[in-house]
């Protein structure tokens, strides 16, 4: 980015992000990230003391180094992913008995993104914080987001940046199917060895709710003839 001023056009702000409230530290942090990453930093959003920055997925490791070295966020919090596709099964709170005639209601499948926008279905996000320095003064914490291409979601590993990312990436690979380039041993961390499928994706059915009919049986058929009260 040639000019130094920061484009904070949060185009995909779902609710009225009050930019005025952004505290000075976030502005400084966004500024340093902007000149380190250049145009790789796509969007950022600051609300209620939290700072979200969305970066291009190619410069994910570079953003990590910037976060740790330039902003001093040396404490690795967590790394995970979100699948923005609305669940084709809805929330399973209504059973077949609820719609005996009309069949399952139509579910909208338009993908809408959360804070700091996003383009694709899978989005990886990680959080790190600067814990040393001013005790009692609240510390800078940044949540980095990156969109993953829809066909084969893959991204560089954060292990050289934060050693703790190893297990988090194994969990993200297992739950969302995101390949981490450069991760030494990507294997299941929670699920048994031969488990296929990625459970936390929205299109993965939650079997517990499929096998057991919903107990809230509602007595819908109409009344018997109303001539005299049954004995």
């Amino acid at each position, binding site marked *: 980015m040639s000019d130094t001023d920061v484009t904070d056009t949060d185009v995909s702000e779902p609710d009225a992000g009050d930019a005025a409230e952004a505290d000075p530290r976030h502005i400084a942090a966004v500024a340093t990230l902007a000149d380190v990453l250049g145009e790789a930093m796509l969007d950022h959003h600051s609300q209620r003391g939290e700072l979200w920055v969305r970066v291009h997925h190619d410069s994910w490791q570079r953003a990590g180094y910037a976060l740790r070295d330039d902003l001093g966020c040396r404490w690795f919090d967590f790394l995970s992913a979100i699948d923005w596709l609305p669940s084709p099964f809805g929330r399973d*709170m*209504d059973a077949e008995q*609820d719609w005996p005639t009309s069949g399952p209601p139509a579910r909208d499948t338009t993908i809408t993104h959360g804070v700091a926008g996003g383009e694709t279905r899978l989005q990886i996000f990680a959080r790190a914080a600067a814990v040393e320095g001013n005790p009692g003064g609240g510390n800078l914490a940044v949540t980095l987001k990156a969109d993953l291409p829809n066909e084969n979601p893959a991204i560089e590993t954060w292990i050289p940046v934060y050693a703790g990312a190893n297990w988090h990436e194994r969990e993200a690979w297992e739950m969302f199917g995101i390949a981490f380039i450069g991760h030494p041993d990507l294997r299941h961390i929670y699920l048994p060895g031969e488990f296929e499928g990625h459970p936390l994706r929205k299109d993965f059915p939650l079997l517990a709710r499929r096998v*057991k009919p*919903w*107990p*809230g*049986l*509602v*007595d819908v058929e109409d*009344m*018997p003839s*109303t001539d*005299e*009260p*049954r004995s």
Partner: protein
Amino acid sequence: MRGIGMLKGMGVTGRTMLRTLFPDGLRKPVPAPSRGAHTVQYPHVKEAPVTRARGVIGLHHDNCTVCMLCARECPDWCIYIEGHKELAPPRRPGGKPRQRAKIDRFDIDYALCMYCGICVEPRVRVLRAPHRRPAARRRPAGRLDGDGAALRDLRAGRQRQAAQASRSVPAPSPPEHSPVTVLGALVAQNIAFGVIAAIMVFAAIRLVTTRNVVHAALFLVVVLGGVAALFLLMGAEFVGITQILVYIGAVVVLFLFGIMLTRTRIGDEEGTDHAKRLPAVLAAALVATVTIYAVVTGFGDAELPADTRTTTAEVADSIFSTYIVPFEAVSVLLLAALIGAIVIARRN
């Protein structure tokens, strides 16, 4: 290792013991542990549950209007309700008969229920009820059954100790090598010698023929034990006990360590014997016949004196008087062996 910290620790356990034994302090040392201890003897004494304890869910059948709110609100989907609609007498005479919902079945699957109490929440939210003032202003039908005792049984951790007191005490085996004092009648000695010799020869043969190395070590223990018994039989008490201490206590343990460190397998080892064993047998037989012939002709019927008991004092005196030089030599040899073994075994 300064001992003060440990003494303080023992002080704490000691104080707790005294406080449990004498709850009213040492001025009135009347032992009343059942009052001093913090535990309650569960089956006999039951603690009363707290007023708000969430117990087993109960239902007021007549109040229930089968609105299904509790079934929908339950996180575990463990409430099963079935009901039907029927006509009830009109409220006012001559009015139209009202439709009432009657409940037929209200089951809770207690395997799933976690007593979270959401179903008896005063403000039960109706999932799909049309948006009019929800009938749920009244407390819902299911109220929290305050009977904590059933709950206390379910959650009580302390299981009763089943105690069948019966008095069969296992018959212990008498000691094998009880040293037989030498003075007894000579007949007893010969019987003892015969038994010990037979066991030793059998163990020795098994030692050299078995293919399981650990078994070999244990047969060696039997042989050494036999030799110690023979020493005691002959009155050489000190040597017998030294044999037990040094040989069985240390040398065989060294063997077992050696066996374990050379990763021998649990069962039998293959290749413990040479293919052709015949020459070895012949050599051994030859040695045996020659020595036995020499011994029988040499000492036809020499008798051992009746009382050959020697005391430790005699052995000690002779070691430190006539055999002082070999004693010092052996101690130097032991030192050399000690250092040699460590140097060899330790690689770097």
